[in-house]
């Protein structure tokens, strides 16, 4: 629900507080409401009592005054003797002294004497009845249109001779005074009812605000003959109704309604509630801030932990600041321990990944990283890589064992490292170490590596035994020959092989001498295509039989005229074909082609035995041999297989079986390039060859009077003694021919006779052998 725990905590606390606040407010409202009503009722009751008291005080004052007057001897005499002037002056005197609103004397015969002319004359029957019934009457009295609180007192002399009646007006003014006496804001309303009439409000104090409701209430109060306190929900007020004593009992009724508006009362409580609401809002804000602050304190470290965990996930170093001693602090501390342990473990793993476990030396990966580092600070032309390879490391390792050999490598690496400044040294393969470094020039780089090689090529003492160490170093520059598709150190490794081939201690990588494997693959692909498209063809180099002085045989040499690259030398693709497995179909094609060419020659009347070069690897291949035999038998061709000496030695037993089979099938076997490999006389004896071709390096120098002449002569003798003919290749001069003829060589091959010739040229050559071929191939 929430993304942040602190928000969630804050909201929960705020909601709880809000609920509590609402409950409190509700409780306060209910209590206040009840309390308010109760207080109002109490106040109404008390106001009612106050009113009673005031009413009585007024009545008593009137009554006492009336009695005082009624008992005054002179007044009584005046009344008894019918002295009206005296009576009126007495009334006037009293009225002005006590501020009574009305005063009168009623005589038993019903006549009224009053200062008020309207009252003078026959008494109101009700009034007369009232005083007759109760000479000390007291209560609400309406005379004409005016309502009074009135009292009467009998005048006795000593028998009853009349009544004195005093009245105080009851009107808006008096009710207003009554309202002001109350402690609470009341509004007072007076209701009257005369016999046979409806209830009505006091005329100058209309009860319009109360209306019929108030009058009905007054009626109810009178009817229940008591004071009542009632709710007036429609007016949101409480009303207290009092029955008032009336002057004329039974003839009229009067009621007083004291109304208290709850609206006004509740306004105060609304203010209080508003205060509570404001306090609540402030409290809520404080709580939200507080809980936010607290939860931030709680969740802040958690957020920190989360961020640190994210960092850790990204593989960065992560640490959390530990504050306090609570559980989260412990968690943070544990996290930090975990984080540092992970970092340490990662360091170990990285170390393992970058170092050779056997020797603890940096491995190739570490060197590549070092190289990447160098590439950032130096141009490619100044970055160099070298592979220092221990010569004959198999033998050394076999002799001293793996354990000591590791120490040897480590020692060599140490010496390498110490041999110059800024060298990055690591183990490249089991028997090699690699050095990556920068130098100002190729010459400086070579000097560095020479120094290293020299420093390394000293005997190493391991467990008291001296081990002689000789190394070969290959060098490569980062800038050169991107076309080789080899990494710097791979090129350096190739350079090691190239150095070995050149019998040098150090050598630069030679891209020309190294066939690019990628190019090789595409070359093989075009070669296969060239076989069918006629780009490849055979050139035949005639062999001169010195016995017959005729051309009776020729060597079929493969030629490739590439549409884009021109003539491609066999060296460039034969070896490759051997490596990539294309040599089999290629040789099959050559045999088929030789058979076909031989037929062309036959048709032209030239019977020529064609020699085909067969790779030593194929001669041990029975499927190849079977196919070759089948083709030759079917065509009846006469072919000879030239096999290099080294190849034969590679797979002696099987090769011998196959060669014997070929010989039985009438296919001649020829040992090619004799003298360039490591000769084994026993194999030479075992091979069922009929021809031995001495390597041209011996033949080319024959005329120079060196030891080659002796070697050639003894080889010729060796061949003859083993029942083989000897062919000399590379004959280019008549002098050499003369020497070979004198030595007893059987056949010669070379430019002196003819260069390799395409089919047509060959045919032309055969027509006139003395004429030298015009176009050698």
């Amino acid at each position, binding site marked *: 629900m929430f993304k942040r725990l602190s928000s969630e905590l804050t909201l929960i606390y705020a909601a709880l507080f809000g609920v509590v606040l609402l409950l409190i407010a509700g409780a306060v409202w209910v209590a206040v409401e009840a309390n308010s009503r109760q207080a109002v009722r109490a106040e109404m009751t008390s106001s009612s009592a106050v009113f009673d008291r005031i009413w009585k005080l007024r009545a008593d004052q009137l009554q006492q005054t009336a009695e005082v007057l009624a*008992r005054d*001897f002179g007044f*009584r*005499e005046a009344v*008894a*003797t019918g002295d009206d002037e005296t009576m009126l002056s007495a009334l006037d005197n009293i009225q002005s002294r006590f501020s009574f609103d009305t005063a009168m004397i009623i005589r038993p015969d019903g006549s009224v004497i009053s200062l008020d002319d309207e009252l003078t004359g026959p008494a109101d029957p009700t009034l007369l009845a009232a005083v007759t019934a109760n*000479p*000390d009457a007291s209560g609400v009295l309406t005379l004409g249109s005016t309502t009074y609180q009135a009292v009467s007192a*009998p005048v*006795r*002399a*000593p*028998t*009853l*001779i009349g009544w004195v009646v005093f009245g105080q007006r009851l009107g808006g003014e008096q009710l207003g005074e009554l309202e002001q006496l109350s402690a609470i804001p009341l509004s007072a309303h007076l209701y009257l009812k005369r016999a046979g009439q409806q209830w009505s409000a006091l005329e100058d104090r209309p009860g319009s605000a109360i209306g019929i409701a108030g009058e009905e209430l007054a009626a109810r109060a009178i009817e229940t003959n008591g004071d009542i306190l009632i709710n007036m929900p429609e007016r949101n007020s409480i009303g207290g109704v009092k029955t008032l004593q009336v002057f004329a009992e039974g003839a009229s009724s009067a009621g007083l309604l004291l109304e208290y508006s709850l609206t006004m009362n509740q306004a105060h409580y609304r203010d209080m509630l508003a205060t509570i609401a404001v306090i609540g809002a402030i409290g809520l804000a404080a709580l939200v801030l507080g809980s936010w602050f607290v939860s931030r304190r709680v969740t802040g470290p958690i957020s920190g932990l989360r961020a640190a965990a994210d960092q850790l996930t990204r593989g960065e170093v992560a640490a959390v600041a530990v504050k306090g001693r609570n559980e989260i602090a412990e968690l943070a501390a544990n996290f930090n321990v975990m984080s540092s342990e992970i970092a340490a473990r990662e360091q170990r793993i990285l170390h393992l990944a970058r170092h050779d476990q056997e020797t603890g030396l940096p491995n190739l990966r570490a060197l590549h990283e070092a190289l990447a580092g160098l590439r950032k600070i130096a141009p490619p032309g100044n970055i160099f890589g070298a592979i220092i390879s221990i010569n004959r490391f198999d033998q050394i390792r076999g002799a001293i064992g793996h354990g000591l050999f590791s120490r040897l490598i480590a020692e060599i690496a140490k010496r390498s490292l110490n041999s110059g400044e800024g060298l990055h040294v690591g183990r490249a393969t089991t028997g090699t170490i690699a050095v990556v470094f920068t130098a100002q020039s190729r010459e400086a780089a070579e000097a560095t590596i020479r120094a290293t090689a020299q420093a390394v090529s000293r005997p190493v003492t391991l467990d008291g035994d001296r081990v002689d160490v000789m190394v070969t170093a290959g060098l490569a520059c980062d800038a050169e020959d991107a076309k080789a598709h080899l990494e710097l150190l791979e090129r350096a490794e190739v350079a090691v092989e190239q150095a070995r081939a050149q019998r040098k201690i150090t050598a630069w990588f030679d891209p020309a001498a190294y066939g690019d494997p990628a190019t090789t693959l595409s070359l093989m692909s075009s070669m296969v295509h060239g076989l069918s498209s006629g780009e490849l063809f055979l050139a035949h180099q005639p062999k001169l039989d010195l016995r017959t002085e005729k051309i009776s045989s020729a060597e079929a040499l493969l030629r490739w005229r590439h549409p884009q690259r021109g003539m491609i030398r066999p060296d460039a693709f034969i070896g490759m074909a051997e490596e990539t497995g294309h040599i089999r179909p290629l040789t099959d094609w050559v045999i088929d082609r030789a058979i076909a060419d031989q037929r062309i020659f036959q048709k032209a009347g030239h019977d020529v035995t064609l020699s085909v070069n067969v790779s030593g690897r194929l001669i041990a291949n029975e499927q190849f041999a079977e196919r070759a035999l089948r083709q030759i038998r079917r065509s009846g061709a006469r072919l000879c297989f030239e096999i290099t000496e080294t190849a034969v030695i590679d797979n002696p037993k099987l090769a011998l079986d196959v060669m014997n089979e070929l010989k039985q099938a009438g296919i001649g076997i020829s040992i090619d390039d004799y003298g360039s490999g490591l000769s084994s006389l026993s194999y030479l004896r075992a091979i069922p060859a009929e021809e031995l071709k001495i390597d041209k390096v011996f033949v080319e120098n024959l005329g120079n009077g060196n030891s080659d002449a002796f070697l050639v002569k003894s080889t010729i003798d060796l061949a003859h003694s083993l029942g083989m003919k000897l062919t000399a290749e590379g004959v280019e001069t008549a002098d050499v021919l003369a020497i070979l003829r004198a030595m007893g060589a059987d056949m010669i091959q070379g430019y002196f006779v003819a260069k390799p010739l395409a089919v047509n040229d060959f045919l032309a050559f055969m027509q006139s052998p003395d004429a030298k071929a015009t176009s050698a191939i």
Partner: protein
Amino acid sequence: MLGRFLTYAATSFLFATQAWAGDIVIRVTTPDGKPLPDAVVLMPAKPGGPKPAPIDGLKMAQAGKQFTPFVLIAPVGSTVEFPNLDKFRHHVYSFSKGNKFELELYGREEKRVITFKTTGVAALGCNIHDQMVAFIRVVDTPWAAKSGDDGVARLTAAPDGSQRIDVWHPYATAKDQTVTQTITVSPGATTVTVVLGIAPPS
């Protein structure tokens, strides 16, 4: 007081025996049948009829903040003494028409004498003591009597034949506090019962 009344009654009786011989016994009761004392029963004087002789020395004493007797019958022209038997002073007055007088403060053993010359009722009061009330019925007929505690009043030697009698009580509710009744007086004793509503002042 009773002695004096009897003296008066005897005197009246002397007149009656001379010309007439009828006695009237009037029993005055309240409506609930209780005997009503202090009611005055009289037979109104007739023109040319006998007049009562004035009596001197009738007494209306003040004792214990009360008048004694409560009701006194006085033939017109009689004098009434007002002896004060209390230790304090009284201020006796009457505003009654024709018999208006005022005896301003007088003390113990002081005696005031008033002559009542007008027939009617004189209501007596004391200006100092409101509760003191008494009535003097001034009559111009020889036949007047006051009911006793047993509510009985006697008129002696009343003329025979149909006669009007008035029964008066100061607190009677009837008009002029008087109930009038016509009776036939025969020789010997004629007995009449008169019912009078009473409303004493509160």
